[in-house]
C-alpha cells in the first residue's frame, strides 16, 4: 500500500510509538497516508483506539516477522 510518510517505531515501548505517530501525522495534509512500523504488541490496540478517537482512518494493518504495520489516512 502506498504511503506519504513512514514512522519507524520499532523497538520502542509505549507511549513512544503513538507520540511519534502523532507528531508525523501533524505534518501531513488531510487525505495523506501515514505508515507506522512498531514491534510493541500494545501498539496494535492503542493505534486502533487512537485513530478512532482522533477521527483518522485506519486503512489496513499487517504483521511481518514480528513487525506490526499500520496505514492511517489523515482526517
Amino acid at each position, binding site marked *: 500500500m502506498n504511503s506519504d510518510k513512514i514512522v519507524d517505531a520499532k523497538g520502542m*515501548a*509505549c*507511549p*513512544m510509538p*503513538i*507520540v511519534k505517530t*502523532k507528531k508525523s501525522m501533524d505534518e501531513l495534509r488531510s487525505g495523506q497516508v501515514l505508515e507506522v512500523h512498531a514491534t510493541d*504488541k*500494545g501498539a496494535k*490496540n*492503542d493505534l*486502533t*483506539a*487512537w485513530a478512532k*478517537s482522533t477521527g483518522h482512518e485506519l486503512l489496513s494493518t499487517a504483521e511481518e516477522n514480528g513487525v506490526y504495520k499500520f496505514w492511517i489516512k489523515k482526517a
Partner: protein
Amino acid sequence: MTARRTQKVSAKEVTKRILNHEDLFILDVRNESDFSDWKIEGNSVEIINIPYFDLLDDMRPALDKIPADKEIVVVCAKEGSSIFVAEQLAEAGLNHVSYLEGGMKSWSEHLEPVKVSDLSGGGELYQFVRIGKGCLSYMVLSNGEAAIIDTSRMIDQYEQFMQENSVKLVHTIDTHLHADHISGGRALAQMYAASYHLPPKDAQEVTFAYEELAEGKDITVGQETIKVQPIYTPGHTIGSTSFIIDNTYILTGDILFIESIGRPDLAGIAEDWAGDLRDTLYGRYKELSEELIVLPAHFGKITELGEGGLVSGRLGTLFSENPGLNIEDESEFRRTVTESLPPQPHSYQEIRKANRGEITPNKEEQREMEMGPNRCAVHDK
C-alpha cells in the same frame, strides 16, 4: 524536579491497600477496550479511564476529573505510559502522584499469601490470592514439608514463601488441566524433585511423566499428618478432582466457586460435560458434610474476598445462596452452562497446549498468553 514528585508503587503495596480498604484513586491510561476488558478492582477503589494518547498535548481532561487532595496512582499496560502521565500531572501541580511499577503486567502476577487456618496435625494452610487475575492456589505446610495445589506460573513467589517458612516442596497438584493460566506445578516440582500430580483423564495427551490422582490414593504432607483426599468431581473438565484437607476444607478447583460454578466449555465439549457438572454439583457434593469450607481455584468478583483477602465459604451456605447450585430444572441448568457464556479466557487453547507440554512458550510469551481476566465461571462477565 519531576522525578522527586512521582513515586512508583508496587503491585504488593496496591494489594495491601485494597485488602485494608484504604481509599485509592486510580487513573488507568490504557485504551478503552483493554480497560473495559480488565482492570484493578476493590471496594475502596475509585477508578477512571483516560487513554494516555488523549493526554499527549494537554493534561486538562485528567486534571478536571482528579480530586486535587487525593493520592492517585496512574496505571498502564507495562508502566511506560503511566510514568509519562504521572510526570506530567506532577508538573501540572498535583502533589501525590505515583505510578504502578510494571503496570497491569505486574498486577496480573502478584500473589498475596493469606493464611486460611492452622491444621489439626500442627500444619498450616495458606491461600495464595492472585488478585489481578482471580486465580487462587493453596499451600499445605506440615513438619518441614509443603504441597501446592493449582500452582500458578510465578513459581519464584512460592519459593520465597517456602524459604521463609523453612519447608521443602514434596508435591504439586493440579485439580484439572487449566485453560486460563499456565501451571507452575510441573516446573516447581522439577526444581525440588517433588511429584507432580494430575487427574489422568485430563492428562491423556501430556508429554511428560506425572503422578495419577485417584480416589482412595491420599497424599501426605509432613510425617503422616495432613491428608489430602482426592474426590473425582468432573464437569469443568472430565478429570476435575476436588480435595478434602484435614476433614475441614474442600478444594473445589474450577467446579464450584463462592458465587458461581465452573463452565464446561473450555475443552470444546460443553454439551457432553454439562451432565457431569450437574452430577458433581447436585449429587457428589450433596453427599459431603455441609460444614466443609469451600476453597475454590478462582474468584469472580472482588466482593468475594473476605477478611484479610480470604476467599472461602461454607458448603451448606453455598447450597442455599450460590445461584449455580439453585437451578432446579435440569434443562435450564444445561442452558445456563452452555449458552450465553462469558467470552472465553484469552489464549485458552494455547494455554491448554502449554499445560500439556505440547508447546514451550518463553517467559514473555507466557505472560502475554495470560493477560486479562480468567472467566472460568459461568457468571463471569
